[in-house]
């Protein structure tokens, strides 16, 4: 079922100058796969995404993305960060932010093309925010803002989509919509999503990897109580979400 891997991590060690944050992580993600990445706070999930994006160079081990170095594959990878660093009062509209996703795709000189705008609008429609297109970015709620970031990543038309806790600010309904959308997108792209919502992951995602500095497990089975206990160090009660669809 797993096609040629689009992300290949072999024996990765990485850190920020201090002790290693990632230890001997080996993981292949197949083309078209929908992988969930779970683990405790500080477990290194965001760090792993940075390694895949080439934002952080591993101290040991090999990363290949789409068969090449992360830096060269970058433009084919969409990324929804956990935190953003920019000022919320930046004078730009929602549509303007999403259009920025076209930067690597559109020719580098002068303005955006008509098709760039069409793609940006399409991405906004997919996350259900077309009505907010003209709204200044500073006037959004946390959840709306998070969906803008997702639309921005979609506008890059990526082959691989990395999402770092995209549901952190979403209400249950928006969260369900988002996972539905990811499921749909999964038909045309590989998806790796970091989340703490274990019940949801096991419901939607084909395979789950658990990361706590090292890769504790990756399984295609639904997560069992034991694995979760091993991962987080204490039992976690499954919160069953209401039925969807």
């Amino acid at each position, binding site marked *: 079922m797993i096609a040629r891997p689009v992300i290949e991590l072999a024996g990765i060690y990485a850190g920020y100058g201090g002790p290693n944050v990632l230890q001997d992580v080996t993981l292949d993600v197949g083309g078209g796969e929908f992988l969930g990445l779970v683990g405790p706070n500080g477990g290194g999930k965001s760090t792993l995404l940075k390694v895949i994006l080439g934002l952080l160079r591993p101290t040991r081990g090999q990363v290949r993305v789409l068969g090449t170095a992360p830096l060269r594959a970058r433009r084919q990878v969409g990324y929804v960060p956990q935190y953003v660093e920019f000022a919320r009062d930046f*004078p*730009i509209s929602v549509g303007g932010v999403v259009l*920025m996703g076209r930067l690597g795709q559109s020719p580098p000189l002068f303005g*955006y093309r008509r098709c760039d705008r069409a793609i940006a609008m399409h991405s906004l429609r997919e996350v259900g925010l077309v009505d907010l297109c003209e709204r200044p970015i500073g006037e959004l709620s946390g959840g709306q803002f998070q969906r803008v970031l997702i639309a921005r990543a979609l506008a890059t038309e990526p082959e691989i989509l990395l999402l770092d806790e995209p549901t952190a600010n979403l209400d249950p309904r928006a969260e369900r919509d988002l996972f539905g959308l990811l499921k749909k997108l999964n038909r045309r792209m590989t998806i790796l999503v970091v989340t703490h919502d274990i019940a949801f992951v096991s419901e939607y995602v084909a395979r789950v990897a658990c990361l706590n500095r090292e890769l504790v497990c990756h399984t295609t089975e639904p997560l069992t109580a034991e694995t979760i206990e091993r991962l987080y160090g204490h039992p976690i009660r499954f919160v069953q979400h209401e039925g969807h669809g």
Partner: protein
Amino acid sequence: MEFLHALMDFTFLQNALLGGFLASLGCGVIGPYVVVKRISYLVGGIAHAVLGGVGVAYYFDWSPFGGALAAAVLAALLIGWVSLRWRLQEDMLIGAFWAGGMAIGILFISRAPGYNVDLMSYLFGNILLITRDDLLLMAGLDAVILALVMVFHRQFQAVCFDEQFARLRGVGVTQFYLLLLCMVALTLVLLIQVVGLILVIALVSLPAAVAGQWVRSLGAMMLLATILGAVVTLFGLGLSYGPDLPSGATIVLVSALAYFLSTLMMGIRKRRVQG
């Protein structure tokens, strides 16, 4: 009104006004980037370091304008690189360039043969001495700035907005940041004759900051800041002409007043919306 009559009669006033407008165009276009990227302090550092170049140029009897231009670009690249490399110590490093540049300038000027240098006009500007040649140079700098902004606006915007995302989209963040700072340097040189290098930072940032309070896109900010800059120059020049006040300082004071006024009005409007 006396000013308007004088404006009809005297070429030097027409030149001054035109120079002020050309400078407003440069800082109207560049100022918004400086404001949204929050690098006024860094830009202040570049501006003051320019005095070093002017001093050296005087000492060796080169063209002070060339010295200012070279020093501005050099300072922009150095300070930009240093601030990228040592982000955490950015403040101190900029301060060192700021003071160090000025000190070099003062030392060289004090040793310059003949010490008859109109240092004051570099420090505080002398808009009334703008010549036709100066105007041509200023128009040239404006053209360079405008052309670069038209071609690369998206990249500059992305670098100002979210560096990490820009980098992931394959934008050369370091190169574009340094290019932007070089354009800031050109703007500073444009402004030196108008308000002097001590006060340039005010004209770069204040009109753009006012604009930022009223409009919600970088492009609109540029347009509004340019218009505001021109209005402020006109008023400043007019006010200073009658009583023979220093025009640079008057222009800066008018723009500071405009900023306070705008902030006040913004506050009232917000209160009304919330109340």
